[in-house]
């Protein structure tokens, strides 16, 4: 089994595929049911953001080992319009899609590490990690 796998996000069905992939990897890594739910939900939100705002992109799942601790890294990358005001989208309750998607603050809370890089007109790259404790 490779330590990296990905799902291209183009349709609603790809959101389902991405979160199933993430759940399987999380299960294999030994995450408990609550963390599995956190990881699955985070992937679902990130994949939906790609589908809604960028049209298409990719969810990549990587297994990590750092200082002897295993973890799972979710990379959500797209070549969409980018996010004009990152600080604003990181505020709770901010949404441009009419309540669809609890947004990035929720994903940040579900995961341990969260990084976002975005460039207007070029796309967005979000990396979220959960460590196995």
């Amino acid at each position, binding site marked *: 089994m490779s330590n990296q796998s990905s799902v291209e996000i183009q349709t*609603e*069905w790809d*959101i*389902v595929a991405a*979160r*199933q992939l993430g*759940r399987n990897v999380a299960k294999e890594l030994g995450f408990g*049911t*609550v963390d*599995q*739910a*956190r990881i*699955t*939900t985070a992937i*679902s*939100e990130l994949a*939906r953001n790609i589908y809604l705002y960028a049209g298409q992109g990719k969810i990549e799942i990587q297994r990590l080992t750092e200082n002897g601790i295993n973890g799972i890294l979710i990379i959500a990358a797209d070549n969409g319009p980018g996010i004009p005001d990152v600080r604003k989208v990181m505020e*709770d*309750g901010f949404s441009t899609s009419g*309540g*669809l*998607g*609890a*947004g990035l*603050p*929720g*994903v940040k*809370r*579900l995961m341990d590490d969260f990084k976002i890089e975005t460039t207007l007109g070029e796309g967005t790259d979000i990396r979220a990690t959960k460590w196995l404790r």
Partner: protein
Amino acid sequence: MNVRIPILKLRDTLIVSIQWELDDQTAIQFQEDLLTKLHETSARGVVIDLTSIDFIDSFIAKVLGDVISMSSLMGARVVITGIQPAVAITLIELGIRLEDVMTALDLENGLDKLQLELEA
């Protein structure tokens, strides 16, 4: 790939058990099916059991919240039952509040709660 969620009628209550992971289409279809069934049967209560569901994202939460509000517009009360610990934890961490939603630990408690509510 469009699988429909079965909706059962027991006296004046509709019972729904969601048994597998919901995709967007199935969730939207369920919304329509439930409201149509409410209209056809004049049921006054609905129990939606989520025992088998191991995660809920913001989309599914929105569909559920909407179907509860829509049912209420049609004069029916909805009880959500069987939310797993992992689901409760992730929903709150995600920042989703299903406010004013009647919930119960399991189907049996849900039916009791609904009965009390409908008799009141």
